[in-house]
Structures are given as C-alpha cells and as structure tokens.
C-alpha cells in the first residue's frame, strides 16, 4: 500500500532519492534547490536513510566527487540549479563522457544577468548538448517517480549516461500537493542495487577517464550518442514497467492531452502543462479543439512523437520558458528539426514566456491557442512572440 503524503516538489524529490538508496550524496546549496538537500540531511541525521553525505565547497566539486564515487561503484545523487548548474558545466560533459550514471535534480531557475532567483528553463536548455539525458517534471508526484526511474535509466548497461531531472523553480519545487509514496520493498524490487562492471576494482585495476587521440576519440563520442538515441526505447519500456509496478504511467518521452482530435496543439515543457491542460478543457467547451503535447524528455528528443503530431489543417505552437538569443526558443528549434526530418513542412508558432519567473496565466495560454486557431486559416507572423512583454516589439 502506497502512503499518501503532502509534499512539495523538492520534498518529493528527496523522498524519491531516499527510496532509490544512493550511497553517496554531495551537494552545494542554491535557491530553490535547498529543500531537497535539507530533507536528505535530516533523513540521514535521523537514521532514516543511510548514505555518505559530502558537504562540498562548490557545485563543481559536487559533481567531481560524484564521478569519483561512481567510479568506485557507488550509486550517487546531487542537486543544483541555475548558476550552480553552469558552474558544473565542465563536469557535466566530463560525467557523460566518462559514462558515470549519476542522477541529478536541477531546479530550473533564471540565469544572471540580471540576477533572478525565479524560474525559467534557460539553465538546463542552454546545456542541452552536454550529453546528459534531460527530463522535465510536471508535478511533485512525477518528480518522485522520475527520480526512481532516472536511476533505472542511467544505470542500464546499454545507456550508462547521467540523468538530469528538471523541476521548475518555486512553481514546482515549492508547491505542495498530495503525493503517493511507494513502499521501499517495491522500489527495491524495481531498482536493484547498482552493479556496473566498468568501475574501478581493487583486484582488477582499471585506468579510467583517459585521453584519446583523433584515431579513437570519435568512436567514443559515437558510442555516447548511440547510447542516448537507443535510450528512447528503454525509457519508454521503463515508464511502462514503472506503471505496472506503481500504477502511474506517464506516456514515455511525451505526455499528450486531447491531441488526437485537436485542431490546435500547444507543445509545452514542465509544470506549465498543468495550467495549459485546464485551459484546453475550457477552450473545448468554447468550441476550440485544443490539445497539449508535453515534452518530458528533451534528450533523447522525442522526434517520432513530435513528427506524429503533424496533420493537415492543424496548427502547432511551442510555449517555452527559454530563448536562444538571436534565434528562437530551443524547444521550438528541436521541434522544427523533428518535423523537418520527417519530411514535413509545417510552420509552427513559438511563444516565449515566463523568463525570469514572470507568471504565465491562463489568459496567456488562451491567447496562444487563439493565435494557433487563426493560424489554421490565415498566415500569422511566425516570428518569435514574447508573451506578456512590457516593451514595444
């Protein structure tokens, strides 16, 4: 019997971590991630959870220590946000290149300058190419479930790639909701102890994290790429088997809502999807056939799922809390690439919203759908639209 608890997103992550039994945790505090590591520290201090906890002096050291612990065969966890994630950037590439199956929670937060502690997704999206699997949670329940699944994915012998679990800062990390907490023995059954033949071994020593010449380097990079591409199938299977064990299935790489008969589909990422779903319900009552495709995994990218959205006389938009300066939103670029790979010439609208924590309200989402509806019959300018902008464009 799963117990029901009233948890914030951060607390749900801490519970997911406890249930996944990492052996070494190292973290450096940064708002709005702090509650995760505070709860874990409390659990350890009260003997409810047994792990080595390293109070490190920076995020760079947190991930560096995790690589060391992972190299000796320990299951590891760390958490960060924003500037901290950027400070880790060197180690992010290092960890994926070294194929260390580390799981990290990132509280999505804006990047300086100007300073802001509030949420947007520029931190993780600007590091999309660092070789990590990136998944975005919608609510506290999914956050807990994702942490457990993340270990199963990262440690899969044909993947062996670190996983970054992203939660929107404050909106998700600090919002409380009822969460079903699985039983430990069920989690143990789903996620057995970490075993990896490629770690250090005192009886059979290994030299790890070496250099390679141009003769070999590209093959290592190819294998890394192939592992993440092939992870798509494994991620879908793990989500299904998690659903079978715990009664919650999320849809694999994407979670669709009323997409089948939709005229207008808005693609979203993260916790805004909950609001967007309720707007869809409202619009449907008003006669607009709206639907939501929530991208869960940005890497590996769900290109088949996105391509399958394309349909005659359907308008597609991307709503995202990020901008690649001088071009467009990173999610939109990826969506367009997936449609193009499928041979589809399909214009999409790109709505940039919520930068620096500006709230995205129901009306903003409604207006996006109205634009999409209009786009079906007349050409709407395809330039990037900044939602709720206070200056003239």
């Amino acid at each position, binding site marked *: 019997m799963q117990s029901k608890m009233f948890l914030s997103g951060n607390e749900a992550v801490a519970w997911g971590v406890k249930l996944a039994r990492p052996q*070494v945790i190292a973290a450096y505090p940064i708002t709005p991630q702090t509650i995760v590591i505070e709860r874990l520290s409390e659990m350890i201090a009260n003997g409810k959870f047994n792990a080595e906890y*390293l109070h490190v002096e*920076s995020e760079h050291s947190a991930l560096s220590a995790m690589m*060391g*612990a992972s190299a000796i065969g320990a299951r590891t966890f760390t958490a960060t946000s924003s500037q901290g994630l950027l400070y880790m950037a060197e180690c992010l590439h290092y960890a994926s290149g070294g194929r260390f199956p580390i799981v990290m929670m990132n509280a999505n937060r804006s990047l300086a300058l100007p300073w802001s502690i509030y949420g947007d997704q520029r931190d993780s999206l600007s590091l999309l190419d660092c070789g990590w699997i990136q998944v975005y949670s919608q609510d506290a329940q999914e956050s807990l479930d994702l942490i457990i699944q993340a270990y199963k994915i990262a440690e899969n012998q044909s993947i062996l790639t670190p996983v970054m679990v992203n939660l929107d800062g404050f909106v998700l990390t600090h919002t409380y909701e009822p969460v079903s907490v699985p039983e430990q023995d069920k989690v143990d059954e789903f996620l057995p102890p970490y075993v990896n033949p490629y770690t250090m071994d005192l009886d059979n020593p*290994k*030299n790890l*994290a*070496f250099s390679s010449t141009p003769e070999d380097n590209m093959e290592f990079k190819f294998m890394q790429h192939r592992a993440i591409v092939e992870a798509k199938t494994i991620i879908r299977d793990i989500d299904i088997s998690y659903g079978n064990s715990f009664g919650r299935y999320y849809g694999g790489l994407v979670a669709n809502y009323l997409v089948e008969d939709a005229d207008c589909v808005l693609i979203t990422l993260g916790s805004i999807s909950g609001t967007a779903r309720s707007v869809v319900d409202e619009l449907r009552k008003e006669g607009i056939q709206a639907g939501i495709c929530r991208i869960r995994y940005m890497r590996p990218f769900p290109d088949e799922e996105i391509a399958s959205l394309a349909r005659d006389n359907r308008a597609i938009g991307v709503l995202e809390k990020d901008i690649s300066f001088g071009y467009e939103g990173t999610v939109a670029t990826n969506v367009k690439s997936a449609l193009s790979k499928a041979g589809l010439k399909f214009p999409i609208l790109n709505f940039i919203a919520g930068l620096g924590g500006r709230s995205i309200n129901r009306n903003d989402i409604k207006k996006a759908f109205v634009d999409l509806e209009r786009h079906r019959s007349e050409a709407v300018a395809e330039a990037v639209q900044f939602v709720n902008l206070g200056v003239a464009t």
Partner: protein
Amino acid sequence: MSTGKNKYALRTLTDNEYFFGHKACGGCGGSLTIRLALKVLGPRTITVLPAGCMSAVGFIFPQMTFDINAIISTFAGTASMLSGIRAGLNARGIKDCHVVGFAGDGGTADIGLQALSGAIDRNDRIIYICYDNEAYMNTGIQKSGLTPQGAITTTTPFGSSVSGCRTSKKNMFEIVAAHGIAYAATASVGFIPDLLYKVEKAKNISGTSYIHVFAPCPTGWGYESADTLEVSRDAVACGLWYLAEFENGQFRLNHNPGKLAPIQSYLKSQSRFKHLQQQEIELIESSRDVMWKKIHREWLIE
C-alpha cells in the same frame, strides 16, 4: 646529509612498479615522485591525477601506464574526486585502500585550491601530493602561483622593461597547515628516503594529509636532465626549499641545512634564472633570509 629520524628503510622498498612506460621527459621530478610514492602505497591504492603533465604522459588510450586503479580528474577537481572516491569506498565498506592524488603546482595552488581546501576542511581520508615544478609545464611553461620570483616562463618572459616572474611563491605548506590539517609535509626528489618516509606517514593518517614535493623540470627550468637530484639538493642547501612537517599544530624543520649556501650557484645552474642581475639576486636572497628567520623563531628544528 642528515634528514634526522625521517628515514625510510630503502631495503624494504618493493621492486614492483605501478607507474611505468609513460612518456615523461628524462629527469622529470614529477614522474619520479609518483613512481616512488606508489611503491610505498602499494597495489591497494587508487590514484587521481588532474589534467597536467602526468596525466598527459600516462593516460593516452590505449596505452595506460598505471598498474593500479587510476583516473584523470578535471583540472580543478583532484581533491573533490579523491573525496568522492573515499566516500564511495566508505559506502561500499572498503577500508584497506589508499586514495592518493598527484597534482602539479598550478593544479594545486591555483585552480585546484578550492577543492583542496574543502577536502581538508572535511578531513577526508585522502593523501594529496603536489609535485611542484614551479610552472604550467604541460602547456608550455607558463607562470603559476608557485613560480618563484625572477623565473622566466613563457608568460613572464625576458623583456626590455620587465623580465621574469614578479611575484614570489604562494606558501602552500602554511596555507594547508592553517586549515589545521592532520598531517602536512614538504619534501624533495633530492631527498628520497625522506620523501618515502613522509608518504609512509601519510599512509597511516586517518584524515587528510598533504605532501608538497619539490620536483624540478629540466625542460622548463633549463638544465641537463641528469641533474634533477643535484638541482633539488642545491635548492635545499641554499634555503630556497626546505624539508619540514606539520603535525598537531606544530611546524617542524626535519632537516637542518646549517649555514645556507649562497643562492647564486643554484640560480645560475638553470637558464630560467640566467638573466638575473645582482640586485635581483639580492632581493631573492633577502626574502629567503626573512623566511628563515621566521623558521628559526617559530618552528621546532631537529
């Protein structure tokens, strides 16, 4: 020469090699440090080397040169990776294993200082060995925080208005000691039994230990590769380097050089100092004398 009681019984040193077949320059003080230290630490040792000379000469796939578990860390991450390995070993219940890092002067005193400070603060059971060749040698002899005053490097070149390094060496030994570290020592490849003794001692420390090894670089300093040990001994004889330990809050000079030799012959043996004028030499000499006054005033001397 006397090194007091700090003598390692050389006859017990194993013939086994744990670091061989690498591509270091002839006469390299850094590779000698690693080779010797690993003989003391033995096969149940995990070693971390950051980006730098020793990782560049020892880890080019598929030619691996360590016969023990070894890993390259990020440049800044020697100590943090050591801490992670120790935490992983603890979590897995493995106790009879040494965790040792070998980082250069730049990797220790500049980019790696933050992580080293954190590890000492946590008193993690790791051994951190700095092989100090007084510049960024792997990248082509650029100035580091441990480049001595007056030395020519490629970023402190001989010039018409300024020549050589204008700053003096950071005092890593005392920086580390100021943390209240369990054990710290300075050593030199010119005094091998003393170096081995200190590694042996670090091996049995239950917290963090730090050994700062003077490790000359013929390529970067400009002397014949056969002269590494002699150059090392000259540095100690003229008082520009010293052999000491820090334990229980007490500094102790474990090798008394007696009356210090003039620094001229040490400086003139290396092309990096050849340009120095008498006035500059006197400046270096006077800062040496200040340091030694303090040593005599505050430290125990054997």
